């Protein structure tokens, strides 16, 4: 494994507070999701429907993109296309400048993180105010999100209290979670109203109306997108659905899988800018459709990953994520879905630990609301890493030597006949505490001594076969 990955993993494993923080949030998420699923008798059919809706869109992406663009323009929106992250940021910064924006508010969007928008805004000298409470925490801490649904999951409420005390103008006593929320509200309210531009993501792009849908639990997306003069939406092209009813089918799956709730507190549909007679809404409504590797996924055997709803269930149930947390993955997206996506976004060379740092236990696929075969996709990256010669020579050599034996049963018998008694030389009372070449195992656990003779040798003697 690469030293950068090892270093991040070791740092995460040594951080006991991190484990407490992860366990609190993911534990609650898992039990609430389990209850929501148990209360939904047709959950498995709903998942299959969700999978089919997304697969249908993926198979007809060009058609639905064209339909969405047509209808969005008809509603008064302006549609922009970005091939990659740089283009997307350029478009957004250009729109901000055009609007003369000094300050922008942003509602949590993983796509924004993916394209590096926070950084691009800072470089352009535009003040960025994160309005999602967790993103606000992440921004104050100078951090990056560690979970796609709860960006500040890695912080305990005690740590958040300290952060607010140090950074808020009027933190008050901060004795409870409510008090902390109050402090953040006082800090952010004025900024909400003063922003020139609001930037949000989209959970769904609805093709037959040109509307976009956002879901939040704090109402910050509404305050981000309504008061400013300009609303900019950045969305991945895979967020398309044919119609509102398809969005509804997916919404039921998304919210239950993410938090176990039936619906988010706020589910908002935005269709075009403020019209004559509307009480509120932005004067200009821009939608930036971002590819950034997605169309390549279609032809690279990763089409199924375009179904992802970003619900986070695979993270919450992943035994690796739950121990190392999101930052150790080193990409925008952590957990199983991140281990599939990061090689697309950052290249396999720098991220090839991710598909391998997985036990392939399959729990992610089991909970995924749209049945994405995550272990299969991770295996695909492993195959590719092997094919492209990215595996270290030591690993290739070991697999080669082992394969040589396995393919020659006579030699294999002989080798095991010799190796098994040799292993026993290291054993004390049945257990091996240390043995050459077995440090990966014996550093952390004992290895049970093998029997005196292999099964095949014993059976040959018993049955007189040769």
């Amino acid at each position, binding site marked *: 494994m690469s030293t950068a990955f090892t270093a991040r993993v070791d740092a995460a494993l040594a951080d006991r507070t991190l484990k407490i923080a992860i366990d609190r949030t993911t534990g609650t998420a898992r039990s609430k999701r389990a209850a929501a699923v148990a209360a939904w008798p047709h959950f498995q059919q709903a998942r299959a429907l969700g999978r089919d809706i997304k697969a249908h869109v993926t198979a007809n992406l060009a058609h639905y993109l064209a339909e969405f663009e047509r209808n969005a323009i008809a509603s008064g929106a302006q549609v922009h296309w970005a091939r990659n992250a740089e283009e997307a940021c350029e478009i957004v910064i250009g729109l901000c400048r055009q609007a003369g924006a000094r300050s922008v508010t942003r509602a949590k969007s993983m796509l924004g993180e993916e394209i590096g928008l926070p950084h691009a805004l800072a470089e352009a000298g535009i003040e960025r105010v994160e309005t999602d409470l967790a993103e606000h925490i992440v921004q104050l801490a100078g951090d990056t999100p560690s979970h796609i649904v709860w960006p500040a999951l890695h912080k305990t409420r005690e740590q958040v209290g300290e952060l607010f005390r140090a950074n808020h103008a009027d933190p008050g006593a901060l004795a409870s979670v409510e008090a902390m929320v109050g402090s953040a509200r006082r800090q952010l309210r004025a900024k909400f109203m003063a922003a020139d531009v609001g930037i949000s993501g989209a959970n769904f792009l609805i093709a037959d109306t040109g509307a976009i849908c956002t879901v939040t639990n704090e109402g910050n997306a509404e305050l981000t997108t309504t008061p400013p003069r300009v609303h900019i939406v950045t969305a991945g092209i895979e967020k398309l659905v044919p119609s509102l009813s398809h969005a509804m089918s997916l919404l039921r799956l998304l919210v239950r899988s993410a938090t176990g709730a039936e619906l988010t507190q706020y589910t908002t549909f935005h269709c075009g800018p403020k019209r004559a007679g509307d009480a509120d809404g932005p004067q200009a409504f821009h939608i930036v459709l971002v590819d950034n590797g997605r169309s390549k996924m279609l032809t690279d055997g990763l089409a199924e990953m375009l179904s992802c709803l970003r619900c986070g269930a695979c993270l919450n149930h992943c035994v690796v994520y739950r121990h190392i947390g999101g930052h150790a993955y080193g990409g925008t997206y952590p957990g199983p879905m991140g281990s599939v996506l990061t090689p697309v976004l950052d290249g396999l060379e720098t991220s090839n630990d991710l598909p391998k740092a997985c036990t392939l236990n399959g729990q992610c696929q089991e909970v995924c609301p749209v049945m994405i075969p995550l272990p299969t996709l991770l295996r695909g990256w492993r195959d590719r890493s092997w094919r492209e010669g990215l595996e270290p020579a030591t690993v290739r050599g070991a697999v080669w030597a082992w394969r040589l034996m396995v*393919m020659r049963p006579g030699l294999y018998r002989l080798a095991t006949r010799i190796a098994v008694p040799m292993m026993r030389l290291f054993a004390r009372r049945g257990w091996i505490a240390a043995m050459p070449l077995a440090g990966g195992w014996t550093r952390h656990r004992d290895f049970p001594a093998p029997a005196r003779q292999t099964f095949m040798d014993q*059976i040959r003697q018993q049955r007189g076969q040769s």
Partner: protein
Amino acid sequence: MVAIVGQTKNIALSARGRKNVSVTSIDTPRVGLFVTCLVDAMRPRIGFAAIALLEAAGCVVDIPQRQTCCGQPALNSGDHDGTVAIAQQTIALLEGYDHVVIPSGSCAATICGHYPELFPVGSPWYERASALAGKTFELISYLADIRHWSPDRVALAAHATYHDSCSGLRELGIKAQPRRLLAGVAGLSITEMEGAETCCGFGGTFCVKYPSISNAIVDEKASHVTASGAGLLLGGDLGCLMNMAGKLHRSGSPVRAFHAAEVLAGMADGPAIGEEP
């Protein structure tokens, strides 16, 4: 509105398990026992327990002499060509039996689930791989589901907990079968531990490629085993059992570990994993 037509109507209600079982009922099937490389080298008792159980369930058991490994280490390392070569060797070795039985969920899942995926659909090797997949079984589920066998006059006064190994659980749908059979062992009680379905952190080569992550996972697992209060840890996959037993032993826990087949075959009065006879 666009109608999305899919396979929604004929999907199984359970998300788990296999779709490719194709066995005809045979009174006395000729069973090829694939013991797995791990059982062969580390714990032959499990192989002998499997023979005893299969014979008790009315099978004629043959042990193909040229068996080695199902190829999982190559499969999980991304060595596609190596996996294909090993799969072809294994298919040729095993396809002549009425049924093939394996005392491991993960090795059985490799043959049942992954072998067919290695070959182009419709190719001769695909057909052969699929035919073998359809008649290959993990031992405990084979005894319960196909042979309708249950233990008779097997006794063990003990308090156990059961770990559901991931491949068996999610790829083959093995959950109720071992519990049902173990319930027939006189004197044995089972207490479910927290997170029985959570991976133990073994993951084949994962445990030595990413030892610190594997350790964190098995450490938590061992604490759940201990918290169950059981004196015995049972499971259906030797790799996972060695991982958990090794951690329990290192941490000074008195919990002993056996493969479920050893218990069902009345062999749990012998040495547990890591004990000398």
